[in-house]
């Protein structure tokens, strides 16, 4: 595992970039535990100060230090994303496994439900759900709501892998040597599925953070908890852009761009690493070009 990471880091620039940025962001989010200010309280520091030595990224109109606030925001956003990913991948993997192994009408029924969730416009329905729950929204509740629309992509992928694994030689070998179905699935097939699940995990985090940010600008998030989305929401509420408090709005936007970019590069590089076809192709192309 560690060797693979090291190799990826060395030979894939995208992985190196994504991984380092994520490490920096994780470091920032760990810093939030040492924050001198409580992120929920207002008027702790003078308002609207531009960046200075005392307040590295300035302060906002609510009297909060932007740097320490953003560390909390990064932590909460990543937490939200991971929670969504855990829930939705559990559902997705389960549905994919059942559909793939059962086949027939069970497969068809599950996959048409799966496809329906892919086609349905997620944002309006998520807005409806979070409007109804407006007063009770917490990070956990948002994660549950978001999972409703993030499981089907993983489900489809796991099913495709299972379908190809089911027909392989070693499955038959296991079957004829008397291994039970459950044991075959857990011991022989799961190791193939897990790497895909990892790439999918990162993608779901990415999607969830983006969706929470989108919901937050409509004011449909846990507004007192700092996340990247709610930080932008409050900056917009106080018209930070029009009043020239650029450090307030620019900080979350830049952090968001870097977070999304690095997560995406990580997932691309991992899934490319996992897919032997693209690896072969790349090797062939390198041969041609040299």
């Amino acid at each position, binding site marked *: 595992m560690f060797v693979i990471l090291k190799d990826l880091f060395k030979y894939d620039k*995208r992985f190196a970039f994504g991984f380092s940025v994520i490490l920096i962001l994780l470091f920032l989010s760990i810093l939030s535990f040492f924050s001198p200010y409580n992120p929920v309280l207002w008027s702790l520091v003078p308002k609207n100060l531009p960046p200075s030595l005392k307040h590295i990224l300035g302060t906002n109109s609510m009297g909060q230090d932007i740097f320490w606030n953003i560390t909390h925001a990064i932590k909460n956003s990543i937490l939200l994303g991971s929670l969504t990913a855990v829930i939705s991948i559990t559902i997705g993997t389960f549905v994919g496994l059942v559909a793939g192994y059962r086949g027939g009408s069970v497969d068809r029924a599950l996959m*048409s*439900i799966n*496809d*329906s*969730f*892919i*086609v*349905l*416009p*997620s*944002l*309006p*329905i998520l*807005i*409806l*759900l979070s*409007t*109804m*729950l*407006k*007063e*009770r929204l917490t990070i956990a509740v948002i994660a549950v709501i978001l999972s409703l629309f993030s499981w089907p992509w993983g489900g489809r992928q796991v099913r495709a892998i299972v379908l190809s694994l089911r027909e392989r030689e070693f499955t038959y070998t296991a079957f004829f040597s008397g291994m039970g179905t459950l044991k075959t699935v857990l011991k022989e097939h799961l190791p193939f599925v897990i790497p895909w699940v990892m790439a999918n995990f990162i993608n779901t985090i*990415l999607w969830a953070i*983006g969706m929470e*940010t*989108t919901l937050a*600008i*409509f*004011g*449909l998030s846990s507004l007192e908890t700092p996340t990247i989305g709610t930080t*932008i929401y409050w900056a917009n509420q106080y018209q930070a*852009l029009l009043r020239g408090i650029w450090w307030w*709005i*620019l900080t979350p*936007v830049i952090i*968001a*761009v870097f977070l*999304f*970019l690095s*997560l*995406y*590069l990580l997932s*691309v590089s991992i899934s490319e690493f996992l897919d032997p*076809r*693209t690896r072969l*192709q790349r090797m*062939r*192309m390198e041969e*041609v*070009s040299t």
Partner: protein
Amino acid sequence: MNLLKRYILPRLIQYFIVIFIGITIVFLAPRFIPLDPVISVINRITAYGAQYMDPEALEKLTETLKELYGLKGSIFEQYIKFWKRLFRGDFGPSLTIFPTPVISIIKNSLPWTAGLLIIAALLSWSIGNILGGLAGYFSNKKWAKVLSVIAMVIYPIPYYIMALILIILFAYVFPIFPIVGGYSIGINPSFSFIFSLIKHAFLPALALVIVGIGWWFLSMRSLTSTITSEDYVVYAETMGIPKNKVLFQYVMKNSMLPQITNLALQIGGIFSGSLVTEYVFSYPGIGQVLYMAINNGDFNLLMGIVTFSILGIATAALLIDLLYPLFDPRVRYR
């Protein structure tokens, strides 16, 4: 006949399943969530001044609201009623713009959203696919690598952040385009009206197109680079067929097909993006109305918009799917 049975029928069935699931979620959402929309409206009314209310009047109000929201009777009865109202296109009156029916508010704003969505989707789909195809085919060229890096940086940025970046850029750094509204006020329908329309739609469309191009570019490039190593392409190249012809008639033609299916799958996501973009640029479409509905707790309007978006997106996806046999002869003759 065979085509109908094998291709069109399953898609139609899938279409009805999508609508059924979507509408059922919309129906269940307010009923299974512990917060009662009726109570929240009453709380809102009492918050706006009317501190004391006659208990009898309150009772009546609750009844009326329940009737209005279709919350009367057993859950099964409610469900049947919900579908009946849906078929009549009756979503009740809007509460913010009382007594305008929800359906006519949606009718007014729908053309704006549809126009923006269709233009942005078509533009980003065609530009992204052409560029992606070129970059996938000539993947060793320098410009192809530069384009790939740019697409990779742009694609993961959500629509909302992109819209915000554009606003920061064009409101402060280069103030050329108007950043709010659908057209300038007080212009009669004429050439200048159309010009004003385009000018106002430019930035919202740009935000959608930029992010869209990133996604279409990346998926097209990977499709093309797989197809480029297929035997028939290598054979065509060895035969000395000009590169342009190989690219457009052998490679692009084949890699375009999955992208049509992808468009059907992605249209919901693009729609979500356009809702957000409209809100950011105060463009007078569904997104703007949606924001108003959320802010004012306008339950009817919200339900109407969500139902309409499900119907609209499912239908759009079905239409794209039905167009597919026109492009793929393998589906037509088998």
